[in-house]
């Protein structure tokens, strides 16, 4: 996701750390390079300029005198500024406790609106709401069909009419919601260009008709400099309440999130990071900022684990990581969790310090099976005390698990690396905040 950006930041930060002091010169070098990184990450030109200016002001100001290392200080300033740019707190969507909540989804063509509607419906349903999907995209061939298929797969009703009148569909969906006893309408609109005045009028009309609690603007995370133009135009005409950032499972740097957030001032509420209907995350600005800095997000990793496993187990894991009591039993448990949680690559990006390292790594999902086999071939004692794994034991384990001794060695090495990583993290604070 933002690993590229992270790795570049890492590089710069390494350059900066280890130098005795921030001098005007080395900060200005770094800032110039950051400007370049941000532009390469599709952050809008003007936003980049402002960002670099504000960071440079802070770096040159009083705070430089504080007795921390220059690298830490600069890192902190970047982080803080990124958080400010991204919005300081996470915001959830407005749901009416009583009556029907109406949510409306708008955006450009191909940004991922329909898929997001399916994801949101699934999410709300799992939270006990009774969503109704409304298909108001009467233009794109088979868009309605697509929503119907999505609705069916998650057992959520879909309202559509065989007419070419999106306004009427919106209007009638509200009565229908009452009839079928749904409490949340998710209205999918057609993709449209912000310069297409007829289409923009249609979408503002629909908004007037249903008077939604929330309008969500869906944007492709790969969008370039133009992101600010479309977001601005949509915001001026439809006044949306939140932003949904899609296709974050790709390797786009996602700089447009920074641009849009800072230009329209609306919060980013959701992140879509996969094609499956549960690939939906709530957006946390500080997490994205730390992710950009390559510091990762162990918090969200633990949280994700909590969602799917009982809290005790998650707490135990967190405790073990905190106390640096990682052993092969925990490791095996983690692997099993990871397997249930989804793709490894998306999870690895969240682990602090790994962002930069796994950039080019191809994740072989089958490797997990081998790892499991290896750990299963260890004795209880070996799992608890990995230090006792000598040559003879490793040979036996390799035979027992049907792997090679190299495989076993590699695993032990990875395990040790991970232990060191957690030790380092614990030293600097568990939340990965420096």
């Amino acid at each position: 996701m933002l690993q590229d950006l992270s790795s570049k930041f890492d590089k710069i930060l390494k350059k900066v750390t280890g130098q005795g002091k921030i001098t005007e010169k080395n900060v200005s070098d770094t800032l110039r390079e950051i400007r370049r990184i941000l532009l390469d990450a599709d952050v809008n030109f003007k936003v980049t300029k402002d960002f670099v200016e504000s960071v440079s002001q802070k770096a040159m100001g009083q705070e430089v005198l504080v007795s921390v290392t220059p690298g830490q200080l600069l890192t902190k300033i970047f982080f803080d500024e990124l958080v400010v740019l991204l919005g300081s707190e996470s915001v959830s969507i407005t749901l009416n406790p009583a009556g029907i909540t109406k949510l409306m989804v708008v955006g450009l063509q191909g940004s991922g609106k329909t898929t997001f509607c399916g994801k949101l419906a699934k999410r709300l349903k799992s939270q006990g709401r009774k969503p109704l999907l409304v298909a108001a995209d009467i233009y794109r061939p088979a868009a309605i069909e697509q929503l119907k298929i999505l609705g069916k797969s998650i057992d959520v009703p879909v309202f559509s009419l065989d007419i070419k009148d999106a306004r009427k569909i919106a209007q009638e969906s509200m009565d229908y919601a009452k009839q079928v006893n749904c409490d949340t309408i998710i209205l999918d609109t057609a993709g449209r260009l912000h310069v297409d005045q007829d289409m923009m009028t249609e979408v503002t009309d629909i908004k007037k008709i249903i008077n939604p609690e929330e309008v969500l603007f869906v944007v492709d995370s790969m969008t370039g400099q133009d992101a600010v133009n479309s977001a601005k135009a949509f915001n001026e005409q439809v006044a949306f309440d939140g932003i949904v950032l899609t296709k974050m499972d790709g390797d786009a740097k996602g700089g447009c999130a920074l641009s849009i957030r800072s230009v329209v001032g609306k919060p980013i509420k959701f992140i879509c990071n996969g094609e499956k209907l549960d690939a939906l995350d709530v957006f946390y600005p500080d997490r994205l900022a730390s992710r950009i800095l390559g510091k990762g997000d162990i918090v969200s990793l633990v949280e994700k684990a909590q969602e799917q496993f009982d809290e005790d187990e998650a707490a135990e894991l967190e405790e073990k990581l905190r106390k640096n009591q990682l052993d092969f039993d925990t490791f095996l448990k983690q692997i099993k969790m990871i397997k249930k949680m989804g793709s490894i690559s998306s999870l690895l990006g969240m682990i602090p310090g790994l962002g930069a390292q796994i950039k080019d790594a191809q994740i072989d999902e089958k490797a997990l099976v081998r790892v499991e086999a290896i750990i299963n071939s260890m004795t209880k004692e070996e799992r608890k005390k990995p230090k006792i794994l000598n040559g003879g034991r490793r040979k036996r384990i390799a035979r027992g698990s049907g792997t090679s001794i190299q495989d076993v060695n590699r695993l032990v090495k990875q395990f040790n690396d991970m232990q060191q990583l957690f030790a380092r993290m614990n030293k600097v604070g568990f939340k990965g905040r420096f």
Partner: protein
Amino acid sequence: MKLFKNLNFDKLKEGLTKTREKIVNRISETIAGKAKLDTEILDEIEEVLLTSDIGFETSEAIITETKKRLKSVQERTEPVIIQAVKEVIEDLLRSSGSSDDFQPALEKHKPFVIIVVGINGAGKTTTIGKLAHNFKQSNLNVVIGAADTFRAAANEQLEIWAKRAGVEIIQKGQGTDPSSVVYETIQEAVQKKFDVAIIDTAGRLHTKMDLMEELKKINRTIKKVLPDAPHETFLVLDGTTGQNALVQAEEFAKSTPITGLVITKLDGTAKGGAIIQICHKQKYPIRYIGIGESIDDLQTFSPYEFVEALFS
């Protein structure tokens, strides 16, 4: 035989108006009253290029080249500078093999097999509908293979386009192996002597290894029936995409040999400058541009007209 006419040049112009105005205004503002091509002016031109998604390196390269060409020029007036920038960009576009009169070599192969690939939401299916329509208008028999068996209703969407274009379509249910659709399409194209077979593939992020492997498999499947096919592989890029377009081109090329690019959604305010970067760094020719949702809104790309529309 000219299949595509650039009938909608005005539409492209219209779409790019904002860019054009911006660039011209900025450049005019910058150089008005100044006869010298100083660093400040070039910095501002660079800014204009950067805000068009042309990217850091390519912008720098354009500036450097412009400087070089203007070195011996005495009269550095506004039109001279703009003309120089235009020429540099046009040369960049042409250096990738992009030409004003691209035609697929349809007469050389029968069936002529085209694969269309790209990430989710780039506009593949729409592009295929438009391509099929254009071929059909030239009295060619076209069959489309619906190998996007993943996305909900992808089949239905393509079917509607096929109907609009009046061409054949081969499809199977959602979730079937795309290669089997491909195989059937090519078989059908050979047996029934179709002129053109176009394969639609599922949108895939270039970071998904398994899906990229699937593309390789589709290629192998085609070769089983027709060893010299596919004859064209078009990568569809969303014109609003920023720097990631470059990565997409690079990554897709690893799984399937890209022969040309199609840039969509150029009827908005996006500048599509990322394609200039791709031409600069990767040398894939741009073949078509999409400038709207109706069936006629596909044009043959022309470096000259693109740059003219950008600056005129």
